[in-house]
């Protein structure tokens, strides 16, 4: 299903996504818990440390299946990070289970000192990323986690789009030593990748190929970017869709290639536009190929507790917002 190259200057990993209509729905957290169990069989060094949220993050699936490698650390995330670092020095590969807000914000200094600086093999997972977190409100939503981890030298930062990509990404995380942060989401979302898709740390994935505007998504927001591309196609606007599941190291060549091909870039993320995907893309283009762009994401605000549909509209991150930004750019030029 993966093929290299495309038209003209495009030389990107190309994957044809599954149709959105009638797509299977999977909650990434469920896949995360199940995949940990699968990986445990292949990787005896894998252990899971939980901050008393296992039945929310779905680390409880692992706890039930592999109880002797599950360690409850209680509501004490800072200590949990330190314990993981200590275990990593013995050759364990600890995976951490908590919400993204606590992983990124509560234990930032612990990650900095005992994980990022010594570059230890700790897999930091943030469940409940973004603002679609089950009506928890701003305290439990996470709109700065990409910015925080991306700023830490040496920390690989990942945001898979669906359950298939998440499962493959988790295996890649086990195959590659070093500190990593993984974004996981709470609610069911469409499966867009075919079963035979293989995730690689780093490369972007071209999901649609169109010359008028380049849409870039990360995480499950890429699904809404595909919806936006479909809306634009209905208006005879040809949009490319580039999915960047790796926020760091960012696939700068793919971004530049897309900018060269389309001349217009729209980024979309379930995160603040400050420090996240939009910033990362702007950094690349600013240095290598200045290109007009729009960033779709939270505009320097925190969220609130409300239903998902309301949040997507109120905070301007729906598929419609992505399509509107692309439309405006085309009309302006």
């Amino acid at each position: 299903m993966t093929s290299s190259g495309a038209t003209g200057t495009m030389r990107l990993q190309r994957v044809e996504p599954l149709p959105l209509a009638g797509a299977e729905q999977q909650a990434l957290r469920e896949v995360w818990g199940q995949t940990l169990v699968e990986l445990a069989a292949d990787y005896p060094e894998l252990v899971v440390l939980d901050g008393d949220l296992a039945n929310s993050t779905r680390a409880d699936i692992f706890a039930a299946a592999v109880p002797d490698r599950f360690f409850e650390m209680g509501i004490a995330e800072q200590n949990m990070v330190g314990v993981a670092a200590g275990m990593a020095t013995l050759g364990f590969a600890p995976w951490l289970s908590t919400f993204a807000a606590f992983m990124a914000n509560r234990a930032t200094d612990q990650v900095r000192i005992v994980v990022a600086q010594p570059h230890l093999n700790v897999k930091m997972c943030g469940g409940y990323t973004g603002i679609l977190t089950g009506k928890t409100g701003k305290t439990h939503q996470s709109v700065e986690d990409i910015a925080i981890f991306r700023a830490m030298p040496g920390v690989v930062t990942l945001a898979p789009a669906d359950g298939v990509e998440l499962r493959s990404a988790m295996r890649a995380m086990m195959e590659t030593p070093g500190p990593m942060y993984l974004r996981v989401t709470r609610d069911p979302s469409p499966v867009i990748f075919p079963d035979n898709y293989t995730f690689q740390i780093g490369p972007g994935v071209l999901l649609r190929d169109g010359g008028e505007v380049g849409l870039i998504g990360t995480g499950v927001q890429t699904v809404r970017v595909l919806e936006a591309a479909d809306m634009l196609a209905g208006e005879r606007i040809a949009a490319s869709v580039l999915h960047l599941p790796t926020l760091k190291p960012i696939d700068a060549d793919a971004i530049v290639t897309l900018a060269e091909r389309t001349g217009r870039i729209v980024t979309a993320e379930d995160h603040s536009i400050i420090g996240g995907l939009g910033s990362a893309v702007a950094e690349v283009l600013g240095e290598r190929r200045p290109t007009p762009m729009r960033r779709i994401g939270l505009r320097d605000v925190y969220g609130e507790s409300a239903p998902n549909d309301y949040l997507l509209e109120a905070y301007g991150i729906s598929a419609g917002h992505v399509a509107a930004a692309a439309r405006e750019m085309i009309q302006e030029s």
Partner: protein
Amino acid sequence: MTAVETRPSLDDLRRMSVQARKLIVQAIYHAGAGHLGGPLSAADILVALYFDQMNVDPTNPDWPERDRFILSKGHSSIALYTVLAMRGYFPVEELNTFDAAHSRLQGHPDMHALPGLEMSTGSLGQGLSPGLGMALGAKVRGYPFRTWVMLGDGEIQEGQIWEAVFTAARYRLDNVTAILDYNGLPQFGWPQAGGFTRETPIDDPGAKFRAFGWHVIECDGHDQTSIREAFDAARVFTDQPTCVVAHTVKGQGVSFMEGDFNWHAKVPSDEQLAEALAELDAQLAAIADVEAA
């Protein structure tokens, strides 16, 4: 089982402690930066650990079953570097590179920079948690090693310490020993009527560890007899983690530094260096006299 087949005499330990203090004062003078008060309060304990207690092999620093030591109060790094050098992990002359560009002896310990360092520390309150991870991992793997973590009494104001203290008791990690360098002097202190108090940051820390489910032993952190008794007891205690509350004096061994918070991080002048070394040489001579008698 101890590291060394034949344990050093208490006078050997005393002599090495004074020698460590001389090297510490010289290194800080040479670097023109660093901390002195805390390293001097920790010197006897570190000598006891590396020469009398810990099961380590400097020629094979990555040996999986070695005892682990974490200096949670990472700003006392020069004391740890000094004792590691004396123990044979690297040349003593390298102490003169402390804090210099490209030195393996970073201002705060970098676990990948220098053999013998088990964890990077420096941001206070963080060293006990990795110690628990090592102890927990040892239990899982069936390794017999012990993990020792030295805490400063100032840094136990950090909340993470008490997260770790709670968790260690919960997992009954009897293979971890916390050593509290209870020198009683923080860098700045707490405001109170009439000015600032430099009194101990946390009163009766032993009672607090005990309340969290730890076994607590108090000792004189400058008396090798007392230290040996405490650490020997800690090594054989089972079913609970042990905290050794070592009563110490900041700046111990140099009279004009002792108990003076100004020497937390201060570089001695030429005259002060000479005076400090003369005092320490006198202490070495006194140990020799006792032995000769």
